[in-house]
């Protein structure tokens, strides 16, 4: 199957000739690919009524998801005509009654892969495709995985303070709890807002005051935020009875 591309236009106004090239559709042996131009969608935001713009954006996203899913699911040999083929696009480009207008598919004399798709996006739409932004690692998720390691099997997980100390009113959650060795461990996330860190540290202080015989470990990851660093230092000095440890130290200790 030869490679081809087609530009998807949005007819903004029937009265003038204006067509906004909102997306690029490429196809080849590997399957269909699509790129929606974010800058032009931003232009559309000012031209259409808000609900209509949202609906248009939503539909374009659905189309992109469908195409990506189709391309990733294609593992077998193509026995039948591919669904997104040049002939289908030729048929679709004849329909001029909607507001989405597809240009006639144009052949490309090279193997269509991700790299060529990006180069075509730059040449035809003038935009560079952004690489996917890596989501930042969450401390609480990795801390939960740490708690579920086999070496902590003899600990009880997520025990509430009210179950241990009958006089306690606030049900503070203890991540790891062992009655025999009198150890309580709580993980603190320093990457959130100051108010939340403060609340967490008050919980730790409450644990310290209500469980006198227990050794309380507060495990954290070294914060980068200077305000969080100050808070950590302040509470370290204030609550000397609690053992403050970083995650690596904690794992070595147990």
């Amino acid at each position, binding site marked *: 199957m030869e490679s081809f591309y087609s530009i998807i236009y949005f007819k903004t106004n*029937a*009265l*003038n*000739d204006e067509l906004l090239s909102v997306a690029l559709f490429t196809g080849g042996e590997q399957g269909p690919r699509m790129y929606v131009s974010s800058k032009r969608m931003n232009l559309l935001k000012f031209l*259409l*009524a808000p*609900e*209509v713009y*949202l*609906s*248009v954006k939503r*539909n374009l996203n*659905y*189309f992109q*998801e*469908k195409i990506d899913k189709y391309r990733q699911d294609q593992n077998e040999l193509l026995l039948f005509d591919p669904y997104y083929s040049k002939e*289908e696009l030729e048929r*679709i480009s004849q*329909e001029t*009654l*909607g*507001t*989405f207008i597809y240009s006639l598919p144009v052949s490309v004399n090279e193997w269509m892969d991700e790299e060529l798709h990006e180069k075509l996006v730059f040449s035809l739409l003038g935009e560079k495709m952004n690489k996917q932004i890596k989501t930042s690692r969450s401390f609480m998720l990795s801390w939960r995985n740490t708690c579920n390691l086999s070496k902590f099997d003899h600990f009880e997980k997520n025990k509430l303070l009210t179950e241990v100390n009958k006089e306690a009113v606030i049900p503070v959650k203890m991540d790891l709890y062992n009655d025999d060795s009198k150890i309580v461990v709580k993980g603190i996330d320093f990457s959130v807002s100051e108010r939340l860190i403060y609340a967490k540290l008050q919980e730790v202080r409450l644990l310290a005051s209500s469980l006198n015989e227990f050794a309380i470990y507060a495990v954290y990851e070294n914060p980068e935020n200077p305000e969080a660093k100050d808070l950590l230092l302040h509470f370290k000095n204030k609550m000397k009875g609690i053992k403050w440890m970083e995650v690596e130290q904690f794992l070595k200790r147990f």
Partner: protein
Amino acid sequence: MEELKPLTISSSSVKKPTVLLTHDFRKFLLHSPLTPEMILTEKISSMLFSQFKIPRIPTGFFKLNNKSYYCEEQFESILLFDEWNSFAWDEKRKFNQFVRPKVLFELFLIDLFFPVFSTVTRKHIVLGKKCQIIGKHNLSPDKNAFIFSPNTISSIGLSNPVIKRFFEPIKNELFTILEEFLVLYHDKFTADLKFQISLYPELRNSYWDNLKKCFHDEFKNYCIFTIQNFIYTYK
């Protein structure tokens, strides 16, 4: 079909001007010159849509130098209901955005029960906070376009699994929709249609010859059984 008095007509650098802007700021696309056949076909089509309460794309005609042109309204954002655009309804979450999905089924019923127009109804999705389905018959300026030619499930497009997928969430209500459709399809309506056709002396014979075949009990039963068979394929 209203007469349109344009405020202005579009200017275009690539093709002849084709879009009107009316005084109440609606845009109409010039379609083709109006012939007497088109006037009657348009009348029958609009009667069908209003009888079965199906939204229709507004139309009008425009006179220029004693020549009339047939015009159709343009919407801000409209999608063709086609298997290419199946991404708009392939999940229940996406289907919930449609405001009256049974309109689509009624459009297919019109294709089946009244197969006298040159093509099947054109179905569109109007995008917005809630997607609305709107339809229209394509009017062709051919002299012999109004011919009785019975359709099958596959010729109206219902056999396509992607289009069948649309009715999946409302499959239990399809029988009720069919019953309501048949209730509205009564003798007074056929009498009204006959009366409208009789107002056009030159065309009434050929038009009535074709349209009356739709009212035969045999044909009606054939349509009912076809669509019932189709609904049973969902169970």
